[in-house]
């Protein structure tokens, strides 16, 4: 799936102070099967940008097209992964994956087999009957991933999915995400505020800045995968992004310190 945003503006009413410009004049084309990270500090509109592509929100002006068609609302072909997992606590891991299949009209034994296959894919076959509250954060995000993949989406939209996880779990899930991406090649839009994560995962990093939210840099990461976090090329890419971020936030004193 390819994505095209043209002259996209997003404003929210902000009480008495008038309007809050969350995104200003965003123009963007993302290729089919690409892996892109949206990177920036909080308030730069990266989640809003993702929500526009997902169809959860509509632009105040401008257009959002996916595969040439205007986005009118959310669609199963564009699966969203949330930071807080978005799992239903009253359903088991299996039940959560089944929900996605039920929505497609798949029921019964076949649906169960499919759901189990995706839980196995993320290494959670053993935990199928556990409820989310019995699972660790990393396992919950795996369930969410299995649920998103079970409907065979063409696009994965991930909103800081690993931000709440500890470093080791995050590393493991990053590797797993790359493995799944290499296997199935969905178009991935991955929102993060972690520079290392962006470099490690993405082919392309879009650096964003707040007030008003906008894309300031478009950086191509050309590293052999899977990449080595200590390799000079990795550090070089990291340095380029860090520089872009400081340029983007030149007026933000706290960032300079």
């Amino acid at each position: 799936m390819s994505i095209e945003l043209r002259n996209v503006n997003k404003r929210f009413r902000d009480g008495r102070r008038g309007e809050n410009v969350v995104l200003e004049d965003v123009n963007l084309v993302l290729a089919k099967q690409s892996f892109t990270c949206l990177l920036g500090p909080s308030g730069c509109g990266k989640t809003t940008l993702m929500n526009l592509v997902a169809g959860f929100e509509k632009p105040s002006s401008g257009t959002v097209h996916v595969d040439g068609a205007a986005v009118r609302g959310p669609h199963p072909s564009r699966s969203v992964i949330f930071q807080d997992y978005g799992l239903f606590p009253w359903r088991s891991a299996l039940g959560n994956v089944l929900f996605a299949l039920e929505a497609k009209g798949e029921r019964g034994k076949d649906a169960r087999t499919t759901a189990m296959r995706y839980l196995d894919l993320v290494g959670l076959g053993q935990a199928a009957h556990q409820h989310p509250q019995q699972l660790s954060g990393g396992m919950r995000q795996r369930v969410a991933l299995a649920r998103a993949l079970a409907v065979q989406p063409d696009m994965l939209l991930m909103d800081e999915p690993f931000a709440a996880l500890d470093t080791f779990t995050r590393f493991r899930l990053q590797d797993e995400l790359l493995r799944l991406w290499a296997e199935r090649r969905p178009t991935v839009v991955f929102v993060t505020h972690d520079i290392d994560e962006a470099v490690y995962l993405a082919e392309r990093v879009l650096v964003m800045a707040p007030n008003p939210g906008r894309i300031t840099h478009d950086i191509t990461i050309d590293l052999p995968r899977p990449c080595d976090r200590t390799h000079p090329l990795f550090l070089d890419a990291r340095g380029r992004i860090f520089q872009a971020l400081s340029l983007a936030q030149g007026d933000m004193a706290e960032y300079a310190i």
Partner: protein
Amino acid sequence: MKRAIAWRLGLGILGPALIVLLWWRVSRRYTADQFPGPLEVVAAWREILADGSLAVHLKVSLLRFFAAYLLALAAALPLGFALGWWTRSLALFDPVIQILRPISPIAWFPLAVLWFGVGNAPAIFIITLSAFFPILLSTVSAVREIPVAYLRVAANFGAKRLQLLHSVLLPAAFPAIVIGLRIATGAAWIHLVAGEMLGAQSGLGFLIVDSRNFLRTDLIVAGMLTVGILGLGLDRLVAWAERRVRLAWGLAR
């Protein structure tokens, strides 16, 4: 742990025992007709237990209670979901609800008798009314407080309306609704006695009114205590159900 439970159990028995003792001591200063003591009440209990009238009153009261409770559920749940889901409908009807809610169900007595005559109907009407508002209000706020994330997940996977309702909205709102159900149980049980004083010819409320007519104060107190003990039982039943729901939903105990 075991010791703590033993202590709590011991204190839980000691408290009522002290009150009964005090009751007994005070009652001795009056005639049994004025202020029946525990012994007279136990005797009265055994009397209505033996002649079977207690069983009849109990059965009728519980039937009315459950009928009214189901009626309140049937009316308040769908209405609560609709008002919680469509924000504009709430803006439209909320003032009406807020005006009707503080009116005690007892204030509806004259109209209830006028509309429904005497017997089962006005009693059930009063009990339904008292359970209706707690269920309605807790349902409205439960639906409004469903996390947006759940709705987004459902929309993302393309859940149809029916699936959204029974697989997301109902289970997501349920733990908060159950709290309203518990309040409604208490309110309905309290108003059961009041409702049954409206010309009903049976039930625990009738037992109390009827005993007054015969100046049987011992039976009045026996009736009152029966209402209290059953109310406690019902509350424990709903509390148990509430705990089960919270456990199944992964919420804190």
